[in-house]
């Protein structure tokens, strides 16, 4: 449809942009390159500064998107080519095979149970999360349809015990699969939704405007940075978030990776990855101080006897009610230590972690011993950005975020007329800022429809 908007990215920014534009009356394609919409927010435990349960407030929006007559969801889909026209854009997309007939799959999970191979989950692997080769990304996934790992389909998981891949018969010629257990399980359920012979699908759209809501990624600490990678009990703040989550790999038990023991002392190290050297982040990610405050408060809610301490630099509490939230963490007994620790060392016997630092008040060298260290890593540009920049002919800034035409005279507008930004595309921000930007970007996009619709 030519009076349509394409939204790239199905996180909370893309979801909000889509709902606004669709409620306004526009037809919206909401595209995401993963098997479900929901983005980062769907995986978070709580949101600061209110400690609302993240999926509780996001899932209703996801269902709304799913049921909206004006929104078409395109998951597992990537942008290929974009051509500017007088009226807007000709867009070529490729919808990667999920090897499932979306019309037939009901997300019942029979295939998942039948699948013999578990592999580390993309998000929770480091803290013990696993998924099958056929999987639902998370329980509230939209669409509620499983996906099959392409590595399985193409025979790369044989050594791990996968059933598929050894067959020499072309799947499209043989519909009675005696090998693939997922196929069998699905047929037994009376569905026959598994389509191992499914191939990638090319899609062509004409749209009037494009909103880039490609989101942010969490910075991955270099191996050895504060013990990360070397010590099992050093994890990132995103991994800790999953640990707290009742829907996460530990059912919300805050236990440490080395021995699955409940932790009693946890230390947070802020600004991990900050710095001016190559490969480090020369900017403040704004939200990590509040994420840490939230994680400390929740840890204390899980177990009031847990000791929490935090090594911080400049405490950022920039948003509405953020300071009060920080005060709440303090009142619960969180120890704020204003310094950067030297390093993190592991006790080889106990797997506990020792953190040497100079006490900022006394100038003396001290050491803290804790069960678990959480590294508050910053937010970085999505690794999708370079490809999107190329396809859309839009600019990135020196950090890898997208560049606006002018932050005050043409905010959220790219150099290409009709391409707008919102959410993490432009830099680190919190959910409420994403939501506000999403509304703004959708406003700009629908104004382009004015004459045509």
């Amino acid at each position, binding site marked *: 449809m030519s009076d349509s908007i394409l939204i790239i990215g199905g996180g909370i920014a893309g979801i909000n942009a889509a709902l606004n534009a669709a409620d306004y009356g526009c037809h919206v394609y909401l595209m995401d390159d993963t098997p479900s919409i929901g983005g980062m927010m769907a995986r978070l435990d709580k949101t600061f500064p209110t400690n609302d349960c993240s999926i509780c407030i996001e899932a209703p929006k996801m269902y709304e998107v799913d049921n909206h007559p004006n929104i078409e969801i395109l998951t597992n889909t990537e942008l290929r080519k974009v051509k500017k026209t007088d009226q807007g854009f000709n867009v070529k997309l490729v919808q990667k095979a999920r090897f499932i007939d979306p019309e037939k799959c009901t997300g019942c999970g029979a295939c998942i149970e039948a699948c013999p191979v578990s592999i580390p989950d993309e998000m929770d692997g480091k803290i013990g999360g696993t998924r099958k080769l056929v999987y639902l990304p998370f329980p509230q996934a939209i669409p509620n349809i499983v996906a099959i790992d392409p590595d399985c389909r193409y025979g790369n998981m044989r050594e791990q015990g996968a059933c598929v891949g050894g067959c020499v018969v072309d799947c499209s010629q043989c519909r009675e699969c005696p090998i693939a257990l997922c196929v069998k399980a699905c047929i037994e359920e009376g569905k026959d939704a598994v389509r191992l012979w499914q191939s990638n699908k090319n899609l062509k759209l004409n749209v009037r405007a494009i909103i880039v809501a490609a989101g942010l990624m969490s910075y991955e600490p270099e191996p050895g940075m504060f013990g990360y990678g070397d010590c099992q009990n050093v994890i990132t703040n995103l991994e800790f978030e999953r640990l707290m989550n009742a829907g996460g790999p530990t059912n919300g038990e805050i236990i440490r990776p080395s021995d699955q023991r409940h932790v009693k002392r946890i230390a947070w190290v802020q600004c991990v990855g900050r710095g001016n050297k190559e490969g480090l982040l020369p900017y403040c990610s704004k939200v990590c101080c509040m994420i840490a405050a939230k994680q400390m408060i929740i840890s204390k809610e899980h177990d009031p006897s847990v000791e929490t301490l935090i090594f911080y630099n400049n405490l950022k509490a920039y948003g509405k009610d953020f300071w009060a939230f920080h005060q709440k963490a303090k009142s619960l007994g969180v120890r704020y230590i204003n310094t950067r620790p030297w390093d993190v060392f592991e006790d080889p016997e106990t797997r506990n972690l020792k953190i040497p630092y100079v006490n900022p008040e006394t100038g003396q060298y001290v050491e803290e011993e804790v069960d678990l260290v959480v590294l508050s890593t910053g937010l970085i540009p999505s690794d999708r950005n370079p490809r999107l920049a190329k396809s859309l002919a839009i600019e990135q800034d020196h950090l890898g975020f997208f560049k606006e035409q002018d932050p005050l005279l043409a905010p959220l507008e790219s150099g290409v007329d009709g391409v707008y930004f919102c959410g993490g595309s432009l830099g680190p921000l919190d959910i409420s800022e994403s939501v506000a930007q999403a*509304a703004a970007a959708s406003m700009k996009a629908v104004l382009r429809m004015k004459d045509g619709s």
Partner: protein
Amino acid sequence: MNDEAIRVGVFVCNCGSNIAGVVNVPEVTEYAGTLPDVALADEGRWSCSSDYIEKMKELIHEHALNRVVIASCTPRTHEPLFKRAVREAGLNPYLLEFVSIREQVSWVHMNQPEIATQKAKDLIKMGVAKARLLEEGEEIRLPVHTECLVLGGGMAGMTTALHVADQGFHVIIVEREARLGGLLNRISGIRTDQRPYDPQELVKAKADAVDAHPCISVYTHTQLQAVEGYIGNFKVTLLANGDEQTVNVSTVIVATGMRERAPIGIYEEIDDPRVITQLALEERLLQQDLGEVQDVVFINCVGSRNASRGCCNIGCGIAVKNALAVKTLNPEATVTVLHRDLSLVKEEKKDLKAAMDQEIRFLRFSEDRYPVITRADGGLEVSTRDIILDRDFEIHPDLIVLTTGFEGDKSVEQTKGLLKLSANQDGFFQEAHVKLGPLDFASDGIHLCGCARSPKSLRETLDEATGAAMRASIPMKKGYVEAEGIVADIDLTDCKRCGLCAKMCPYNAIELDDEKAPQVIKALCKGCGLCAADCPTESITIVHYSDPQIFAQIEAALEENPEQKIVAFVCHWCALGGVDMAGVSRLQYPANARLIRVMCSARVSIKMIQHAFELGAAGVLVAGCEFPTCHYIEGNYAAEKRLKRTRKRLAKAGYDPDRLWNVWCSAADGPKFARTMRDMVKNLELDRESF
């Protein structure tokens, strides 16, 4: 339809082996067929498949069904699908009742097929009992026209107005001052990561665009005097130079901005022209006149980041920017910034580097030891201790600039009263939801943007202003607002005109007329049921969740073996999400509970709970969203309060109040719901096997 005989169709899904693997579906279907008024019971292999949906529609016609019960997965994901099917079959979609026998039965009682089958039968019996009493509902529309009132003519107000007006909608900007531009009129300079800007040029360009726009009317020197009505129908009285004027608008955007605060608590008593605030400095910078000033000290976080006030959000950036501006104007001057944490964002880091290059000194003081200002021999002295160098400093400045933070505009008290909004202690308006509804108020048709919400940079203000324009434009473009048919309905026969319902409604959806009789503005009602549950004369009902319907469910649930059963009232949004999560995760728990879905835990009245105990229920559970989340703002808080009263009432009536439980459960927390079930069964000493 009222005279027509009730003909209920029950469609029992076996979900492949997902339900049928545990529950004896043929037996359940046969049982359903024996229930009163059931004209048809059919087993569906995959009820949600398009084949079966078609079959369902045919069966509805063939058997002249006028009520439908679907027993399958969960309403949270599949109700819209079946509602559509029912509508396509020519029935009113509110004549559908959804029973969950997968998430609530087969997935959570996998090892107890007989008990699971019995529970499925009970749930279907409850569903049929309610379905027999279902009435048609309708989506309610309220017309919305295209006039929008913008309060405040600063950058936020002008930006939002321009976006609304660009759609051809008519906008009225109300500005108290003589000219547009607001706070930015008094600012000397502004920069982003790309370049510096002249604020006066920004204001002028925007104001010119506003003036030239054919769809915008600007009322300067004007204030809000009175407001009546609601979305689509606001009658607003404006006061300009003593003259009153009334306008009718459909939507309102609040963009009243903020003002700088005077020093509070600290430096409050200093009355010296050489000790000024950032805004006073801005005005001198604007005039490019600092005089002979040679030594300037900035003190940050004055009255901020303490027990009573938060971070002002933008003060650090302002201090660095203005320190640089002082240095530019008086290059020989010594400039020192005394700060606590330096809270700077991306672009402001560049300013910090430039400031350091220009030898502006940054000294960090401790939050419990603010710099001391003294005046001796006509001069100023500032003494402070830098906590990084661990050294004392004494400075003798000829100008001290205090970064004092902000508070809402002085009109906030009046505006919030007139529009029935709330604001925090600093005078910043309270949005509908801090994360997902930042530009909305709880009341439809009123929106918020810019510094009226909280202090923020111009950049963020522009995003919010543009976004608020979108939020306000959606109903204006559609021409209506629509509410689901689940709404409150008031019968005035017994109403005592106490006004409690109007007072409690979180959405201002109940109005009192001149005789104090409450009227529901149905398009604004979200159907939470808070008013119905608390109405002292039981004059309010909720369509689709009426008292008789819920009582019928309670009675059906407790018809057999009530002494082993728990009646669980579960809110649709989070608690049912937790129930579903327990199901998806296959968490096994005892099967004693019979769930009754309500939209909000606030719908559950004392009478409902007491009725369950009167019928011999072993226990009652009220499950709502985990605090502070609530889909209806604070329904769970109201429910919690009411539960306290309920326990007292139960004790008086001779029931053990400890048999009434509650759980506040997030949609992610399946384990919590399963645990509650186990705990209840254990505590109430119920039999897990023999009913």
